[in-house]
């Protein structure tokens, strides 16, 4: 299979071309057809609480400034001067009253409008300075603090784009009145692996856990991880949505000692009951791990593994090329929580899943290995296998009462293949 009109995903046989995971041509097409048309996660409102606060991120492969320009409004501006292209913000984050280009001095308001070039008197009299502000993303919206933006003028509203995954995101990001807050700047690291490996890993790759993560699961004295990997509760399932999002919910297996599992903080549970619907609150009960992906490249996990508090993490798989990504990883806790609890959540979160996480370190070397070994013409004749998805396609759980399409059991490649099918549809130019 080559990257041409025949496509990359073989739905009949459950195979995906390796081109999709190594080719720079595919990466360029992804930027055009997926990243410049989809709502992309950029950060969390609590990273920029005050007017003038900004962080720099990427929207697709374009560098942007995410700035709070009024107490109630966030702008996403191309981080490139309209004059000769220099970045207005060269630090990772800061606070400012305006953006002044260090090259020739063009100055912009924090909403992006051009204030002065410094040489306005040399421009022709009919120059329309009103059209010469920093290029704004036409659509910016947030979902319970999660900031998304989209370059495509004609996109559907964010809530429609999120669709049924919103119900699940609410359970993690809107379960107290105060909402969640970011506990530290994001860990950032470069990995020479294709970004989709991250998205697929989080939407539902239960099969990698026992082998990739044999270290933490063996060393976990309470055996919570090992037992959890091997014995998924019957209530565990994948859920996917029409937009290509999905998550995997893993519950305690019957007979497993619940006391070994730290669940959510007792102090916070009453707050959850007040904010969540009865169904949403019941979803959290006995939940061991929820791990999911918002198409295309935002993932989230709430997990309690080994020692430490249950930690909620957002992960961004920022494509750099066909064979490299930059990973950003944030840890969250409820605003209402005590500082000591937040500190423990942060430590537990990045002990397991940070730039040096005991889980992440083994994922990263194996993802790099897969990318390196696939990036040659011989290997590219042999597509990746997603075959354990096939028996479960078109077989949703009809008794599923919550939003999305649920599929059982939770240890098939169904959700991953669903993601790749959505990816293929968009790459062929459809799906808008």
């Amino acid at each position, binding site marked *: 299979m080559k990257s041409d009109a025949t496509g990359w995903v073989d739905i009949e046989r459950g195979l995906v071309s390796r081109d999709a995971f190594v080719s720079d041509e595919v990466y360029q097409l992804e930027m055009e057809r997926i990243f410049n048309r989809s709502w992309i996660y950029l950060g969390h409102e609590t990273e920029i609480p005050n007017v003038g606060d900004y962080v720099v991120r990427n929207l697709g492969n374009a560098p942007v400034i995410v700035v709070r320009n009024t107490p109630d409004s966030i702008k996403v501006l191309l981080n490139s001067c309209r004059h000769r292209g220099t970045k207005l913000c060269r*630090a*990772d*984050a*800061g*606070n*400012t009253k305006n953006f002044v280009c260090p090259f020739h001095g063009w100055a912009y308001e924090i909403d992006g409008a051009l204030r002065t070039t410094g040489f306005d008197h040399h421009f022709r009299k009919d120059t329309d300075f009103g059209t010469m502000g920093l290029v704004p993303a036409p659509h910016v919206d947030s979902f319970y603090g999660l900031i998304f933006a989209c370059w495509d003028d004609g996109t559907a509203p964010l809530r429609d784009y999120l669709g049924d995954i919103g119900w699940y995101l609410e359970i993690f990001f809107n379960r107290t009145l105060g909402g969640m807050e970011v506990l*530290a*700047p*994001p*860990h*950032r*690291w*470069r*990995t*020479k692996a294709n970004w989709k490996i991250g998205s697929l890993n989080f939407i539902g790759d239960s099969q990698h856990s026992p082998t*990739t993560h*044999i*270290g*933490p699961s*063996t*060393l976990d004295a309470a055996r919570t991880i090992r037992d959890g990997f091997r014995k998924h509760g019957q209530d565990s399932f994948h859920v996917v949505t029409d937009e290509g999002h999905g998550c995997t919910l893993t519950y305690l297996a019957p007979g497993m000692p619940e006391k070994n599992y730290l669940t959510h903080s007792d102090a916070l549970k009453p707050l959850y009951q007040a904010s969540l619907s009865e169904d949403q609150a019941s979803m959290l009960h006995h939940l061991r791990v929820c791990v999911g992906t918002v198409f295309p490249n935002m993932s989230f996990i709430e997990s309690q593994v*080994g*020692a*430490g508090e249950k930690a909620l993490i957002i992960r961004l798989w920022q494509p750099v090329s066909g064979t490299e990504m*930059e990973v950003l990883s944030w840890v969250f806790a409820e605003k209402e929580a005590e500082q000591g609890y937040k500190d423990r959540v*942060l*430590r537990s979160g*990045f*002990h397991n899943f*940070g*730039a*040096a*996480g*005991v889980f*992440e*370190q*083994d994922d*990263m*070397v*194996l993802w*790099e*290995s897969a990318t*390196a070994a696939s990036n040659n013409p011989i290997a590219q004749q042999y597509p990746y296998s997603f075959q354990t998805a096939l028996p479960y396609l078109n077989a949703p759980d009809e008794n599923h009462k919550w939003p999305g399409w649920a599929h059982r059991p939770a240890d098939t490649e169904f959700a991953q293949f669903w993601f790749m099918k959505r990816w293929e549809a968009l790459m062929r130019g459809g799906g808008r």
Partner: protein
Amino acid sequence: MSDPAKQSPVDIENYIAIQRFLYAEVAMLDRRAYQEWFALMTDDIRYQVTTVSTRPAQYETSRFAIIDEDAQTLKMRVDQISDPNLTHAENPPTLTRRLVSNVEAYYGERNGVFEATSGILLYANRAGSSETGLYVGERKDVLIRESSGFRIAKRTVNLAQTVLQDSTLSLLL
């Protein structure tokens, strides 16, 4: 750690003893004697590695931890990379060389306690990778002298990095 400007540097005898200890300690890490290294930690060890989120020069840089371990969680990290059956990141082992320099040492808050600062450069050649990982930073240690020698009660490694380039920091600094 107290303010170095207000501290008194140790005498030459202690200085050499501390420098030798720091050399011996990284040599353990380079020969992957991780358990032996872990035995140098006190029971209340706090082991931290930090990186930076950059800010414009008029603001303070934001430094934050990427590793923050106590004895229990540090032991899990050590056990994982010590056992070839439990690690992929360090099997095959990464080839490493740690260079320690710019050592300074001060008398601590009580007798037998010392504070040491040193520069660390970790060269890491990961198995099967054409890339070379480089980690460079400042280490700040609290050392306690016991009858058997020095032990580390606190270590903070401040890396001069924003985005780690080496995929994952599975190694110890």
